[in-house]
């Protein structure tokens, strides 16, 4: 990073990875004692699978990180995810697309990604032009976009199974699954964006002190729009990666994804108030959650336990973070 890290920063950034190590150790020991499977939890294959399974929420969470660093939030990503999936699968059934054969695939991807970008732009423009808080704008568009999903195909699922597409999505290159490549690729590009580019640094500045950024001549409105387009794009990319493989989307798919993505981002240490956070830590947060799910499944925990544990861990992290930031007894009691 560009600024000198102080000790607390290192502690904060390391926390999520330490947590992952604890999880790994726990599931490796307890898991192998409790699971009926003879395969070790900690095998390379299983870890590669873990990365792949982290992709759908993970790609969205990366975008959420940027929006949250900006001091905004996007609650509509789940609905964007679903609508992009509908466009992806439905567009491949259009007559002219069918005539294109396999060339329809990249085009369908393009349509889906464009859908995400447009939805993101709608959110961004509303936030910019009306000045209404992003939480409210995207809470409302979460409903609105979901409405659009339903309008498209009523309550019926949209399906199109294309084996070429499935084969591509299931492929492994250098041991990593396609979805993993997309997750890691997106993480790398966004990491570069946030640490190396003017846009990324401005994102931190705006989240940190919006007024200062405005006074310094940063055009905050268009900046917001760009970031909302980015998260829309990533929500659509997540849909493209996932639905290329599964080929059918229910209109309710992606519900609660926004909450999972936010959970991952917060676990990764990004501040809700904006101005602080990192793409790499979010990746850690995503992996931590997926690991928890996978591990609890491995040792035979049921749904209620998983829900309970994830909820309490989130609160635990918050308490820990607060303790880390305490100034001690001298603190003003407000």
């Amino acid at each position, binding site marked *: 990073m560009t600024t000198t890290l102080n000790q607390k920063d290192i502690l904060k950034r390391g926390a999520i990875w330490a947590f992952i190590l604890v999880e790994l150790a726990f599931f490796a020991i307890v898991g192998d004692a409790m699971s009926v499977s003879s395969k070790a939890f900690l095998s390379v294959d299983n870890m590669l699978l873990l990365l792949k399974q982290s992709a759908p929420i993970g790609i969205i969470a990366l975008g959420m990180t940027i929006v949250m660093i900006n001091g905004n939030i996007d609650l509509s990503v789940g609905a964007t995810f679903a609508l992009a999936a509908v466009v992806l699968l439905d567009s491949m059934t259009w007559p002219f697309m069918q005539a294109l054969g396999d060339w329809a695939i990249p085009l369908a991807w393009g349509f889906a990604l464009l859908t995400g970008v447009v939805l993101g732009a709608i959110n961004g423009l*509303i936030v910019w032009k009306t000045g*209404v808080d992003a939480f409210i704008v995207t809470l409302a568009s979460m*409903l609105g976009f979901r409405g659009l999903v339903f309008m498209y195909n009523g309550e019926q699922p949209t399906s199109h199974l294309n084996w070429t597409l499935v084969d591509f999505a299931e492929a492994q290159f250098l041991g990593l699954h396609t979805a993993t490549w997309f997750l890691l690729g997106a993480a790398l590009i966004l990491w570069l964006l946030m640490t190396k580019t003017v846009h990324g640094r401005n994102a931190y500045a705006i989240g940190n002190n919006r007024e200062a950024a405005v006074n310094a001549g940063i055009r905050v*409105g268009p900046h917001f729009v760009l970031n909302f387009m980015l998260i829309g794009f990533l929500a659509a990319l997540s849909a493209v990666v996932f639905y290329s493989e599964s080929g059918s989307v229910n209109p309710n798919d992606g519900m609660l994804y926004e909450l999972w993505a936010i959970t991952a981002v917060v676990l990764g240490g990004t501040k809700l108030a904006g101005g602080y956070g990192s793409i790499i830590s979010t990746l850690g947060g995503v992996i931590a959650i997926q690991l928890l799910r996978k591990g609890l499944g491995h040792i035979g925990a049921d749904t209620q*336990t998983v829900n309970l544990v994830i909820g309490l861990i989130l609160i635990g992290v918050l308490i820990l973070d607060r303790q880390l930031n305490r100034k001690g007894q001298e603190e003003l009691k407000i």
Partner: protein
Amino acid sequence: MAQLNKTEIGAFLAKQGILIAFAAFMIGFALANQRFIELDNVFGVIRSSAILGVMALGVTFVVIGGNLDLSVGSMMSFSTIVVLDLHDKLGPGLAILAMFALTLALGAFIGFLVGYLKLNSLIVTLGMLSAIHGLTLTWSGGKNMDIADKSGTWFSVFGQERVMGIPVPILIFALLAVALSLLLSKTPFGRKVYAVGGNGQAATFSGIPRARVVFLTYIVSAFCVATAGLLQASRSLGSQNTVGQGMELEVLAAVILGGASLMGGAGTVFKTVIGVLILGFIQNGLLLVGLDFYVQYIVTWIIIILAVWLDVAAKRGRLWSPIA
């Protein structure tokens, strides 16, 4: 002079915009379908909005106090399942008492985390959304809860009976709305909620126990959730574990539509009731004119944006945001 008029109109619109929109909707739907304003239909809409409405009343307190509560949906399913389960074990009276006690305990836990430990309410209640759902499933073992003897219990009175021709859920909703409106606007506690939400630090400097006030807003919210669970359980005398799921965002939408500010310090119980009714009547009106249920999502989207936009526009004195 013309400009002055414009700002005045703007201010009026913003202040009463939500009522005007409500009136416009009612008139529009009434013209489209006579049945819309028949007493039976109106009662029907309010009755089915009552559960959402009761929860929104509580969330209004939390939001004015400067926090969020995303756990109300999950908590409502907990209340419903618990009271139904205990009904056959303890009898209706004790079951209701026990359910209120347990729900208030959950509210107290959240209130403790947000109020006394000063944790971020969005994340705490997000975590509790998941955790309470787990708790509910553990309680029920994943089974539907049903009262065995459905016709022989007075428990159905809250959800199904009428008093003086008015359905009981409407009465409970109305009574609670009046009581909470008085609590918020007329009592010292209500004043403190506004102060804590408006400027928590200034409230502390004024000798207001901020942590306790925030804690109490979650207690009020939990009480409302318990009441909603009671209505829900009494209405159907049986329930799945999924009841109430996803309602947290609908509740929040109603509260926001009513004009409560997410920054805290602004909003009223009365306006929240209007917000709830708008959502209810839109849903009903769109169904009556023959549109699919999902059209209401899109309409709600637009209405929320317009309502909040008008509100912030009036506060800053110009329609478009000054953000460069």
